[in-house]
């Protein structure tokens, strides 16, 4: 079935606001007018009506379609946005396709058959695709020449021109698939995954090497401790713990009559630290609690005590002797206390007598003094004694002389004697005190000595008197203690040696444990492949690589399909493209143009197009902008007309085809369109006044023109139909 376009009703779509209808009742229909008057919106409406969202967005391969607004933003929101397209088959039966916006609403797509039966939404999609049997990609390469396709062909950098030709040839989908697959990044991703594992492996190998070196060093160290290679196993370590540590500790504690504290069992290398600490603690405890050690301490104490006593005795004894000697010298010099007391008594008596004598003399002197006083009184006869009344010549003088010469001297002598006696008495009393002091000191030292004896008896637990030679006794005792101590120290040393031996076994065990741990670490690392996390990682790597591989295979399959299709298309169309190109350009310098397609080896999924002259040289560098425009049109026309009879549409649409064409190009194009019109209905949209005139003047088929005279926000395009 082949359809032609009959009419188009548009409301609210792109540049349209109010509903307008265009009827395509002639073979040639021209949409004429300046830019921004709604011509492209009209052609886009046909595209959107047939293909909906496929014609919107980046997947179209057109940058302009990204963010493309379907609905007119100035339109009255109460109105619907829709496009209704009427297609007629060869028999003139009308099929209506109506698409509303938004497209996801129920009833957005309705297809109505000539008998009036309607299909909506999914059913309508199926019906529509079965009717038109054309993909969007084929539609825009064989039916609808979009202005953007020519524009991009003209403005692309040479290196990006392949993309533009892809769009003209309809291979953008393949490219999009590759882009969506991120195909050209796949080797990078694959390398990243591989590199990550290689890095892991390098780290692992470095670590293993370092640990192996550690292990070798530790093994060497073990050898120097007389530990054999066959001891580097857990069984051996456990056996060492049992026989070299626990058994020996048990024997030891029994031998010294102490209880062994519980030590945690050693079941694995990792238990060793705990085991070692417990054993060390126990050894420290045993060292401090050794019974001999207690005896040794006691004996040391006794030895010190006896030694001190010996010193004390010597001092005390010396003191007593010194004190006794001092006393003896004193007695020898001054007599003992009795002798001194006698002297004191004697002196007391002498002093008493002397005092009496002095008193007597003093009484006598007093009498004489009274007599002299009497005699010196008036009216007393100085020559008569007042006592006896005997007459004594010059008695007063006599008394005064006597007094002066005899009694005063006598008293003075007596007083001196008395003083001398008193001095003697004081001296004797002092000696007596001194004697008492000496006795006291002597007694005190003796008392101390006596106390010492008591203490000594208690210490030695035997009766020792002053008759015994304390120094010898103590000396012997100290010697005896020293011998005992030496024996005990020897015993303690021996026990400490035993404990040292056990401790040194711990060192051996530690060496073995470190080796076992190192071996375990190496085994863990070498058995990393068995590790669950690594297995999961490996599984993920395999899955990732499978995905990579699948993408590669999909890519290769698509690439193959793309290549086949491209080659097929080029083979089918190259001649017709060459014809159209030469006709449009009519350039005597370009007689032939060979169209080649190759796979872009740098970018899988992309094609590399070449247009060569008869000598095989690349033509592109010598083509003008007009020639380039002509080439784009030739490709489009070649695609549209090759096998045109088998296509579902009997019309082609050209939007702004003459963007860079020269006048002769345009004329040649119009002449070609006359040829095309023999096979297809032609719809051309152009703002090019020259082309408009050529279309109106040179197209020989019946034609109608829609003049897009103006456009406003409220009304949309102002279109006037002109029958020519």
């Amino acid at each position, binding site marked *: 079935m082949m359809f032609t376009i009959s009419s188009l009703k548009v409301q609210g779509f792109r540049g349209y606001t109010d509903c307008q209808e265009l009827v395509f009742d002639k073979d040639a229909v021209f949409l004429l007018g300046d830019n921004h008057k709604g011509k492209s919106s009209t052609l886009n409406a046909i595209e959107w009506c047939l293909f909906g969202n496929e014609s919107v967005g980046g997947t179209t391969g057109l940058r302009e379609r990204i963010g493309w607004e379907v609905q007119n933003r100035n339109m009255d929101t109460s109105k619907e946005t829709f496009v209704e397209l009427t297609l007629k088959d060869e028999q003139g039966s009308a099929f209506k396709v109506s698409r509303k916006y938004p497209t996801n609403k129920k009833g957005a797509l309705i297809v109505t058959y000539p008998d009036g039966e309607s299909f909506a939404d999914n059913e309508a999609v199926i019906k529509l695709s079965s009717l038109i049997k054309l993909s969007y990609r084929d539609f825009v390469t064989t039916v609808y020449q979009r202005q953007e396709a020519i524009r991009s062909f003209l403005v692309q950098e040479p290196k990006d021109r392949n993309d533009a030709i892809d769009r003209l040839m309809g291979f953008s989908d393949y490219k999009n698939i590759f882009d969506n697959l991120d195909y050209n990044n796949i080797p990078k991703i694959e390398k990243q995954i591989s590199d990550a594992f290689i890095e*892991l*492996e390098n780290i*692992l190998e470095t670590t293993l090497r370092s640990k192996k070196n550690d292990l070798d060093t530790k093994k060497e160290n073990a050898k120097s401790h007389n530990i054999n290679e066959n001891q580097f196993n857990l069984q051996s370590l456990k056996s060492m713990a049992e026989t070299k540590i626990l058994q020996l500790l048990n024997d030891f504690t029994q031998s010294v009559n102490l209880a062994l504290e519980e030590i945690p069992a050693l079941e694995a290398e990792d238990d060793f630290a705990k085991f070692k600490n417990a054993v060390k603690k126990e050894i420290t405890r045993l060292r401090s609690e050794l019974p001999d050690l207690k005896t040794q301490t006691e004996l040391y104490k006794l030895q010190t005590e006896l030694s001190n006593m010996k010193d004390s005795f010597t001092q005390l004894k010396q003191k007593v002797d010194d004190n006794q000697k001092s006393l003896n010298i004193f007695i020898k010099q001054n007599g003992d206390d009795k002798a001194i007391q006698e002297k004191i008594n004697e002196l007391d008596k002498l002093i008493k007598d002397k005092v009496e004598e002095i008193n007597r003399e003093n009484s006598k002197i007093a009498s004489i003094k009274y007599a002299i006083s009497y005699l010196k009184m008036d009216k007393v006869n100085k020559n008569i004694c007042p006592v006896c009344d005997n007459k004594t010549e010059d008695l007063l003088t006599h008394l005064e002389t006597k007094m002066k010469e005899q009694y005063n001297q006598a008293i003075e002598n007596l007083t001196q004697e008395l003083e001398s006696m008193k001095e003697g008495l004081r001296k004797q009393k002092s000696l007596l005190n001194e004697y008492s002091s000496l006795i006291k000191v002597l007694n005190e030292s003796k008392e101390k000595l006596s106390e010492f004896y008591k203490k000594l008896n208690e210490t030695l637990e035997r009766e020792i008197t002053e008759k015994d030679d304390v120094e010898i006794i103590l000396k012997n005792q100290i010697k005896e203690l020293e011998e005992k101590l030496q024996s005990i120290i020897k015993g303690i040393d021996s026990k400490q040696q035993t404990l040292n031996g056990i401790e040194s076994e711990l060192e051996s065990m530690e060496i073995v444990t470190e080796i076992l741990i190192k071996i375990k670490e190496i085994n863990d690392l070498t058995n*990393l*492949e068995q590790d669950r996390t690594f297995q999961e990682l490996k599984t993920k790597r*395999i899955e990732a*690589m499978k995905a990579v*591989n699948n993408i590669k295979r999909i890519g290769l399959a698509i690439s193959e399909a793309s290549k086949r299709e491209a080659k097929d298309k080029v083979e089918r169309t190259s001649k017709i493209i060459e014809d159209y190109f030469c006709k449009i350009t009519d350039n005597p310098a370009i007689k032939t143009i060979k169209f080649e397609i190759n796979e872009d080896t740098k970018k899988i999924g992309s094609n590399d197009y070449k247009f060569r002259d008869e000598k095989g040289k690349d033509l592109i560098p010598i083509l003008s902008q007009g020639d380039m425009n002509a080439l784009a049109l030739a490709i489009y026309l070649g695609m549209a007309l090759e096998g045109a009879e088998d296509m579902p549409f009997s019309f082609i649409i050209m939007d702004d085809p003459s963007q860079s064409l020269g006048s002769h190009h345009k004329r040649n194009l119009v002449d070609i369109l006359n040829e095309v019109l023999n096979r297809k209905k032609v719809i051309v949209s152009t703002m090019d006044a020259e082309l408009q005139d050529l279309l109106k003047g040179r197209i020989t088929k019946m034609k109608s023109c829609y003049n897009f005279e103006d456009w406003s926000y409220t009304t949309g395009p102002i279109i006037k139909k002109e029958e020519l």
Partner: protein
Amino acid sequence: MKYETIEMLKNVNNNYKIEFGKICKKLLALSFKRAGFDIIEEREVQGVDIDASINDKIKYTIEVKTTMEQSINIKDKDIEGLAKRQKDGYKPLLAALRIGILDDWIFAEADYLRAETYSIYLLDSYNFPELQQLITPYFEEEVKGHYYSLLNDSSNKPLEYLKKELEKSGIKEEES
């Protein structure tokens, strides 16, 4: 693969750089024998490297590749050789070994392989894990078993030494 096996292989490679690939191939053939494959053919020059079968029911044809790098280069002749043997009823495999501690023999099902350079890990996605698990331990034993002899007793002729070992094991060796 075990670290010690890899270390041994590295040492063998250091001593016999040229012969290393063939040494691995012969050791792999010996591993298949030990794993219970009854008929094994090992080819020195032409054709696929190893054919191994059990009771004529399980039949593998194996192209052997070793590398110290990250990738394996499969040539057209490898693919053609495998395809030829596939027609004779053999399952085509590509046995690839990268000498690294995180790597094992990969027995990639070769039906869909193309002549190109494959990263070893991409090849791993084609791996036949049951065969890998079966063969790897025997291969490690073979390496360990012949390591000393290869380095010390083979008079610098490791291939001749292994050829004798293959003969002793009853492995047929085709030289041309």
